[in-house]
């Protein structure tokens, strides 16, 4: 099936990013296609390459970058939500792209299943 994921919470603060990451890996392992992962609201904060967690903790941005590049998944950060939260091209990590909110509508049109990870 064609899956789309929507994530609306920031990393570390809320478990949503972790759950979405585990779900994405499990969906890929079952042979599903992930059309796009869309970050909205505080979800955009997942994309900053300045993230520098403690050495014994997971690095959430790097997990997304690795998932995105090794599986060729489109990972989009909403530009409107990003701007008000201080995320722009200066800080966005490899594997993420800043895009318009229309890409979320397109995802809802194309995907067989849209799964939302939220607070």
């Amino acid at each position, binding site marked *: 099936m064609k899956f789309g994921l929507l994530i609306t919470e920031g990393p570390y603060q809320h*478990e949503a990013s972790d*759950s979405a990451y585990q779900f994405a890996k*499990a969906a890929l*392992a079952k042979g*599903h296609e992930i059309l796009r992962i869309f970050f909205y609201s505080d979800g955009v904060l997942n994309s900053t390459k300045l993230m520098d967690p403690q050495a014994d903790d997971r690095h959430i941005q790097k997990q997304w970058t690795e998932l995105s590049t090794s599986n060729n998944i489109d990972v989009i950060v909403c530009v409107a939500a990003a701007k008000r939260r201080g995320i722009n091209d200066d800080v966005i990590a490899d594997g993420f792209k800043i895009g318009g909110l229309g890409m979320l509508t397109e995802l809802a049109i194309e995907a067989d*299943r*849209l*799964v939302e990870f*939220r607070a």
Partner: protein
Amino acid sequence: MLHLINKSPFESMSLEDCLKYANKGASILLYEDGIYAAMPGTAVSERMAGVTADYKVYALKEDMMLRGVDKVMDGVTEIDYAGFVGLVEESKTASW
């Protein structure tokens, strides 16, 4: 329909909100802090026994382990992330 509940039943009304709309026989997956609704012997266990009679209730194993919840009450089925994906294959999902 698959309803996703990720908030503690002791702090949030999200499960009760969901139940107002979910028709009997729908699936409910408890994950993240939603796990606590499935713990045996709590102040919400009696309420949850009624819920499991009317709905298919699941608890995400990985989030149980993380929280040290080693068993769930009767009527709740443990599943892992692969099972979570399987439920999404079957139904549209609503995240409460």
